[in-house]
């Protein structure tokens, strides 16, 4: 893939460009609505969903608070099981390690299974520079790669392409990458999938090196987990001789048992299935079954900077289900590309500025890519309070202050050219500074769902996205209320507690003991 997210225009401009693209908008609208409705049904099947969600958040928070311990435990377990663990402080180092490992095998090509971490590091471009061809094998990623394009959705990265375009891309480009598309290929999805099967099978059977990410890593056992649908993951994880997995350090969970939470939360929240078609789990290497060499590259690349921020840290709980994208009115309108990183939608709006800092105009504008409607928070399977982090990051953009950049605490100056944002910030900050008002507002909206305005007017740059947008229906009970109702007497979820310096006396009491 030669495309890159760097040098993207700032969000409002990129959003204005893509909202002008009627087809992109129609595709996105159809897709997000379809997934949204299916997901709601899959979640409704589990009466204990909110308890699973709270447990998921609590386990992730605890893991983050002892991340050093769990990473060392993981490293020991993986090593004992025959794997090799590498540590990468930043993207360049991760790319260097992977490039070196591939070159050491003597191979000049590798098959890849969809991995957001390697999109984040721009691995494909780095490999290309070293003369290594990386083949994406996820159908959507293949479409994106052949089309010399960028992914636009976490789960369905080619959501911005329709079947006719996909057929044209396959006809024109497959031959340059390997087995050409069959003659007379039509735009029927089943035929297109068959063309991809034939094109990729050739590569799987030949491949000697594979590169993957992972959804979870179990510290106590050293087990890695990859959740997928198509089977390209299984091909990459079992057929080649060398497997290199690049995984963000926040993907660790403490115990084998913890998977019972996340393997219930992720498929239902992501693809709206009771379980996804294929889940692979492996621990180091196994004689005669699967790769002989297994390398795990643990990636920081800004994650520890996010960890240093007690409010922003909750973004590291994310299990990349993409549910927040599908409910987001801003995402539906703007499309994934406007977010200018591997992470689109609400999660991108809070994760990217923390991983990369808020010094570029794009990253500084990301925290504004939201109307703060809260739908993302309500669907998030690990209860990330995305609006809270957005407001927190806006404050940082507007007022500057102390942040951690590549492990060093620094003070950033208030951003210039954000006068309008400052006004928006003041309005939103006021509500968030008065938690009782905010809660009352949420409850009111929950009770009077039919009365909510269909259009949400926003001051400042927010107007650009809110002018023509319909609001998603609000859930009957906001998570926050549910939490107070069912656990108000217990400890608040770690890391989710409101910051002390913004909490009033009443908030202090409600929070219970701070973690």
């Amino acid at each position: 893939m030669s495309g890159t997210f760097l040098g993207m225009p700032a969000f409002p401009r990129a959003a204005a460009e893509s909202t002008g693209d009627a087809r992109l908008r129609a595709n996105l609208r159809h897709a997000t609505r379809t997934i949204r409705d299916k997901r709601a049904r899959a979640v409704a099947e589990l009466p204990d969903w909110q308890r699973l969600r709270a447990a998921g958040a609590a386990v992730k928070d605890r893991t983050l608070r002892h991340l050093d311990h769990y990473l060392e435990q993981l490293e020991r377990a993986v090593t004992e099981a025959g794997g090799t663990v590498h540590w990468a402080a930043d993207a360049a180092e991760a790319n260097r390690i992977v490039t070196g490992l591939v070159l050491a095998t003597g191979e000049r090509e590798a098959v890849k299974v969809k991995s957001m971490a390697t999109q984040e590091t721009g691995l494909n471009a780095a490999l290309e520079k070293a003369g290594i061809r990386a083949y994406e094998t996820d159908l959507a990623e293949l479409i994106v790669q052949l089309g010399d394009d960028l992914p636009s959705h976490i789960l369905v990265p080619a959501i911005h392409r329709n079947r006719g375009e996909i057929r044209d891309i396959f006809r024109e480009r497959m031959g340059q990458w390997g087995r050409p598309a069959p003659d007379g290929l039509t735009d029927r999805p089943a035929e297109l999938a068959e063309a991809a099967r034939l094109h990729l099978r050739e590569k799987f059977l030949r491949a000697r090196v594979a590169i993957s990410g992972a959804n979870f890593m179990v510290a106590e056992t050293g087990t890695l987990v990859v959740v997928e649908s198509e089977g390209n993951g299984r091909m990459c994880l079992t057929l080649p001789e060398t497997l290199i997995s690049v995984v963000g350090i926040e993907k660790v969970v403490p115990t084998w048992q913890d998977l019972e939470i996340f393997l219930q939360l992720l498929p239902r929240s992501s693809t709206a299935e009771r379980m996804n078609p294929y889940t692979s789990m492996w621990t180091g290497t196994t004689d005669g079954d699967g790769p002989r060499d297994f390398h795990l590259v643990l990636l920081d690349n800004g994650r520890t900077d996010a960890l240093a921020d007690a409010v922003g840290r909750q973004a590291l709980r994310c299990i990349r289900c993409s549910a927040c994208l599908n409910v987001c009115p801003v995402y539906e309108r703007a499309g994934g590309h406007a977010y200018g990183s591997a992470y689109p939608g609400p999660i991108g709006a809070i994760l990217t500025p923390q991983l990369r800092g808020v010094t570029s105009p794009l990253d500084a504008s990301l925290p504004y890519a939201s109307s703060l409607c809260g739908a993302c928070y309500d669907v998030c399977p690990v209860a990330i309070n995305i609006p809270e982090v957005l407001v927190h990051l806006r404050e940082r953009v507007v007022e500057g202050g102390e942040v951690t950049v590549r492990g060093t605490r620094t003070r950033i100056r208030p951003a210039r050219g954000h006068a309008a944002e400052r006004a928006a910030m003041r309005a939103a900050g006021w509500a968030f500074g008065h938690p009782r008002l905010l809660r009352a507002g949420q409850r009111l909206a929950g009770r009077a769902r039919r009365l909510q305005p269909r259009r949400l007017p926003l001051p400042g740059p927010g107007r650009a996205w809110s002018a023509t947008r319909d609001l998603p229906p609000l859930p009957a009970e906001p998570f926050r209320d549910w939490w107070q109702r069912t656990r108000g007497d217990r400890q608040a979820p770690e890391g989710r507690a409101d910051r002390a310096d913004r909490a009033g006396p009443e908030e202090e009491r409600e929070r219970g003991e701070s973690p």
Partner: protein
Amino acid sequence: MTGADSRSVVLARIRRALHGEGGGPPEGPAPARDYLPAHTAEDDPAALADLLAENLADYRALVHRCTADGLPGLVARLLTARGARTVLAPPGVPGDWLAAATAAGITRVPAPGALTARELDAVDSVLTGCALAIAETGTLVLDGSPDQGLRRFTLVPDHHICVVRLPEQVVASVPRALPRLDPARPQTWISGPSATSDIELDRVEGVHGPRTLEVVLLGGAAPPG
């Protein structure tokens, strides 16, 4: 910068980030697990088997039921119906499961462990057992035991027949499954044949794994009707 340096750099960043709030081994009780261990009654094996069958079928697996006596005949019928000429069965699959099929002229591939991926690609069908099945989610779990074999066996051929023994191999839920599985063994959890919704969200079954998944529920109560 070498990897060893980065290890200490990353760990030091984490400790600095958590200063005063955490770091080091966790203290205190682990988070509450007050979610349900299962979402369905677990004391009725017949109902669990029905739920498993229903959820498997919902994700486009073809479900069959039979008794031990009927298994060889059923396997032979399924293979013949597909026009299979070769079938791979890992060494732990009992010979009598394939007795009728081999009698009908279908060849059981010898020494499958020695086959390359390309050779596997030429095999028509694969027959295995499983480690367990999860009723609530319609999931089969394979863990490389002798009747399941290497992971690539159930990946490259286009037709997979998987036998589940009732009632002992069926659990209700994911929380019931994990304690019965050994994390040291490589695992594949299978819920229906592979699928993609990448083209305009139209679901297409069968991309890279076996495009046809047939599940045989063996034993238990006689099928209704």
